[in-house]
């Protein structure tokens, strides 16, 4: 790792070895830092919220003993049978222990967007416009998938 990249690593707040071994770019180290923090928050969140669900801290919409009635169904049959709306309707069901689990799951599925967004300013600052644009397009693809716009439509 050259002096520039070591400085870049320090700027990104990433610890580097006394004798740096590789040439990771500034944006790569920044991506790693954001990913590391977000991933730990997501994994801790999913364990805590699932414990709440199992121990009945918040009443589930589908009782624990009844879940097995539904997991053999196609997803749209499951939604119909349980009267659950698809898309982002789960955000309004946070009082139920089972739907509270959607928050850490969605967070895990959103981390990549956060990571790509975090490196866009660095890429443009370095005049690496091609990768800046590629990162933005990737964000758009992931946001479109998350929004449900792309997958909209009946079964």
């Amino acid at each position, binding site marked *: 790792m050259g002096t520039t990249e070591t400085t870049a690593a320090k700027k990104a707040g990433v610890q580097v070895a006394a004798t740096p071994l590789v040439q990771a770019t500034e944006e790569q180290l920044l991506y790693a830092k954001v990913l590391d923090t977000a991933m730990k928050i997501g994994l801790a969140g999913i364990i805590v919220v699932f414990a709440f669900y199992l121990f009945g801290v918040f009443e589930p919409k589908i009782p624990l003993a009844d879940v*097995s009635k539904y997991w053999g169904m196609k997803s749209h049959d499951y939604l119909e049978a349980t009267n659950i709306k698809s898309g982002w309707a789960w955000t309004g069901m946070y009082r139920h222990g089972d739907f509270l689990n959607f928050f850490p799951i969605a967070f895990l599925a959103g981390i990549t967007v956060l990571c790509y967004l975090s490196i866009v300013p660095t890429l443009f600052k370095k005049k690496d416009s091609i990768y800046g644009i590629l990162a933005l397009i990737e964000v758009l693809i992931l946001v479109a*998938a998350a929004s449900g716009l792309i997958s909209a439509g009946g079964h």
Partner: protein
Amino acid sequence: MIMKHRKVIVSTLLTAFILFMLMAAPAWAASGPGKASTLAWWIWPLVLFVITFVMGIVAVLAGVGGGVLFTPIIGGFFPFNMDFVRAAGLIVALSGSLAAGPGLLKRGMADLRLALPVALIASAAAIAGAMVGLKLPDNITQTALGIAILAIVAIMLVAKKSEYPDVKKSDNLSSILRITGIYHEHSTDQDVNWKIHRTPIGLFSFIFIGFAAGMFGLGAGWANVPVLNLMMGAPLKISVATSKFLLATTDTSAAWVYINKGAVIPMIIVPSVIGIMLGSLIGVKLLAKTKASAIKMTVIVVLGFSGVRSLLKGLAIWP
């Protein structure tokens, strides 16, 4: 002596795992849509946790992603609909990738410049794959999954690997994108300069890889590595690490399609994610002291068996 014990432990775990699946399958087949399981509710997350924990260990030792083991095994031997299994498979694979990503990126093993163009293509194709997968009837998905898994087994058996592929000259596209790098090879204590070639055809291949990942909820490491290594000429270690890192992007886009279609049951997903993550941590510790080739052959056998099971389940020969 310790080595011998480790081998016995790993072999016993694997054998128990396979026998458990074989014995449990007929009993679980008894529960179906609209019918509650006769087992106590808490047994399910516990069994999923134990199985995915073993799967996490085996996946690391065999050098495969969790998703490629999870989807055929859980889909073939558990009474869950494939919609929920594929969604869980994608979330399991992306969680594994998220956990491994920071270390791989910081050490320069995964390369962001190589990953980004590939991720862009694979993630867009994975959305299409997930949409198709959700529209297909279960029997067709199971049959196609069985065929795909058996093809993956064949790839694992015959695909060669090249530690340092001979890339004489970068192609124009990779030169424009400046896809090149240096990593430190500990075994030789040398810095390795690498570049790639055949970038357009390599990127084109990721349309199919992304589509298959989204459609079957498999992750895509089984295909990423041969394309990055053999076709595009990235060194093996860079290919494996970049592939692992890539899964988070590819599988995230497909996972959102499943989440938006309501194919998420926390009782299936969460114990699996926790199990595979903890198993992976143990697997990493065992990695240095276990013979990888023996484990890989066990994985090939288990995957082959799961592929046959999916195929026969899809064809209603072994329901």
